[in-house]
C-alpha cells in the first residue's frame, strides 16, 4: 500500500469565491481510515478552514454525506484505501445549494420532509388507562425497513428528478410518509394523501431507482414510492365509483 493519497476537495467561500474549485491535499493512506478521517486530518494538520459536517462517525446520524468520485456516500463509512492509485474527489452533495466548502443548504429538504408529515397522526387518542399501543412483530415488519432512514439526503443527491424539478418532494420524504402510513398505530394516511398523491409527490417520480442504490441503510425509497403509486391509483379509481367523494 502506498504511503499517501491525494484528495481533491471542493473549496468555496462565498465572501472570496464566485464558484467552487478543487484544492489538492496529500494525506496519509492508513488502512483503517475512512474519507472522514482524511478530511479531519486536513482540518487538524493542514488547513483548519476546511468546513464539513460530521457527527457520529459510525453511519447512524446522517451528517457526513458527500460526493466521493461522483457517487453520494457517507464519508464515515467509505474506506480510503478503496481509492488507492488515483486522486479522490470529495465534493458537496449534488442538487443542493452549497453554503461553504462541503456544507450543503438543507432547508428545502426540511420543508419537504414536513410536507410528508412524518409523525404518528391519530384521529382518536386512546385514554391513558387503556395502556400502550401494542404491535405484533408482523405489524412492525410492515414498515420497519422504511423506518431505517437517517435523513442523510444521499438519495436526494442521486435523484435526477429532485435535481431537475424544484417542487418534487423527493425520495426520503416519500419513504418516511410510507413508514407512517404502514404503521398500525397511525391514522393519518388520508391526511398525507394530498401531499403524496400529487404531481410533486409520487407522480413526479419516474423510478430511476438510484435513490435505492445509494441508500446506506437499505431503506429502498424507490420501493416505497412504487407501492404508494399503486395504492394511490387504486384509491383514485375507487373514488370514481363513490359519488360525492
Amino acid at each position, binding site marked *: 500500500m502506498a504511503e499517501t493519497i491525494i484528495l481533491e476537495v471542493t473549496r468555496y467561500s462565498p465572501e472570496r469565491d464566485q464558484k467552487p474549485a478543487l484544492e489538492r491535499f496529500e494525506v496519509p493512506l492508513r488502512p483503517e481510515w475512512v474519507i472522514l478521517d482524511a478530511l479531519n486530518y486536513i482540518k487538524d494538520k493542514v488547513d483548519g478552514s476546511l468546513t464539513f459536517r460530521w457527527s457520529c462517525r459510525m453511519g447512524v446520524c446522517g451528517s457526513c454525506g458527500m460526493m466521493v468520485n461522483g457517487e453520494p456516500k457517507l464519508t464515515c463509512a467509505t474506506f480510503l484505501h478503496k481509492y488507492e492509485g488515483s486522486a479522490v474527489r470529495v465534493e458537496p452533495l449534488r442538487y443542493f445549494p452549497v453554503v461553504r466548502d462541503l456544507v450543503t443548504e438543507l432547508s428545502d429538504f426540511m420543508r419537504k420532509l414536513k410536507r410528508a408529515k412524518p409523525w404518528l397522526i391519530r384521529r382518536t387518542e386512546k385514554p391513558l388507562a387503556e395502556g400502550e399501543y401494542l404491535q405484533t412483530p408482523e405489524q412492525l415488519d410492515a414498515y420497519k425497513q422504511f423506518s431505517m432512514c437517517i435523513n442523510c439526503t444521499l438519495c436526494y443527491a442521486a435523484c435526477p428528478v429532485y435535481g431537475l*424539478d424544484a417542487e418534487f418532494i423527493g425520495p426520503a420524504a416519500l419513504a418516511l410518509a410510507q413508514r407512517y402510513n404502514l404503521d398500525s398505530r397511525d391514522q393519518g394516511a*388520508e391526511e398525507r394523501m*394530498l401531499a403524496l398523491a400529487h*404531481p410533486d409527490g409520487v407522480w413526479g417520480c419516474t423510478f430511476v431507482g438510484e435513490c435505492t442504490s445509494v441508500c446506506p441503510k437499505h431503506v429502498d425509497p424507490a420501493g416505497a414510492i412504487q407501492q404508494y*403509486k399503486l395504492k*394511490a*391509483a387504486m384509491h383514485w*379509481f375507487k373514488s370514481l365509483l363513490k359519488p360525492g*367523494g
Partner: protein
Amino acid sequence: MPKTSNDAFFWGLFSAGGTLAAILVPIHLFLFALAFPMGWLSEPTYSSLMDTVRLPLVRVYLFVLCSLPLFHWAHRFRFTLYDGLQIKHLNEVIFACCYGGAIAGTAVAGWLLWNI
C-alpha cells in the same frame, strides 16, 4: 375521501399498457417485422391473414394491443421530455401531443379494425 391528482389515472394506463407491451410486443415484432418478411418462419398467406384479422376476438385483441401500449408510450415519453430535455415549462403542449397522439392512434386502430 380527498380528491387526489388525476396523474393516478394516466399512471394506471401507463402500467396496463406497459405490462401488455412487455408480454406481447416482442413476439409480435419478432414474427411480423423479422421472421415472416425474412422467411425464417413460413409466412401466413394473405387470405389466411385476412380471415384471421376479421375474427371478432382478433379485432378486439388487436385493438387493445394497438391502444393501451400507445398510452404507455404517451406517459413515459411525456416524462422523458420533462427530464431529458428539461422542457417541463412546455408541459401543456407536451401533454397534448403525447396523449393526443395516443388517442389519434387508438382512433385509427378502431376505424381500421372496424372496417377491415
